[in-house]
């Protein structure tokens, strides 16, 4: 039964994550030059997930809901591939390179910052 709770938790929180991501995409969007919205959701999601992994405040089914459902669905890889692929297909090498570096490098830095904050080392 507890497994069933986790499935429901992932589904409902995944719904909220997808709607939140889409709302941010529609508010901040894309100026046609650079996909700021996807970068913002991905970096903030990596930070929050890593801080929660380090701090471990949730037990199941909340852990499945927040980690896998909400944050997994809030952040996205398909949009990143679509945006990078589109930029490369248009021959926009500079922006595509910048976007790849900011996503991958920025994701690692925000994830590291999250692990640091979540493990309590961020406290003075």
């Amino acid at each position, binding site marked *: 039964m507890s497994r069933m709770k986790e499935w429901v938790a992932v589904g409902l929180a995944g719904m909220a994550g997808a709607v939140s991501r889409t709302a941010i995409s*529609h508010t901040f969007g894309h100026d046609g030059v650079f996909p700021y919205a996807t970068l913002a959701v991905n970096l903030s999601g990596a930070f929050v997930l890593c801080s929660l992994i380090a701090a471990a405040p949730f037990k199941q089914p909340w852990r499945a809901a927040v980690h896998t459902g909400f944050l997994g669905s809030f952040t996205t890889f398909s949009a990143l*591939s679509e945006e990078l692929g589109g930029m490369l297909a248009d021959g926009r090498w500079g922006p595509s390179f910048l976007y790849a570096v900011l996503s991958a490098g920025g994701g690692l830095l925000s994830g590291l910052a999250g692990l640091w904050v979540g493990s309590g080392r961020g406290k003075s």
Partner: protein
Amino acid sequence: MTMLSWLSVAAGGMIGSVLRYFISARLNRERGFPAGTFAVNMAGAFLAGIFSGLAAGSPAHAFVVYGILGALTTFSTWHAEILVMWQEGRRTASVLYALSTLVLGIVFYMIPFIYVAS
């Protein structure tokens, strides 16, 4: 976006996240290669290449691209796994996982275009 498009995002997001949870539970291994996360991200990139032609913001696009594929794929788990693998001392695997996902994601997205163009 219309109310129908927002409801489509919600329904697709539920389907995509449950599919990812199912596939990750089957394929990801503790202290092994996160094959489940890798599989959903590659499948999502490939399907995004197929469905990116749908009119942006239409209910069909909202359902498939923003909902199902956006939620099926994940960036946060990918990065958390890269960092955990590195911290566990599995550094070569960590770097390979990071680079292969990024590069093959672009390749999988582009395959449908190459197929259509030829």
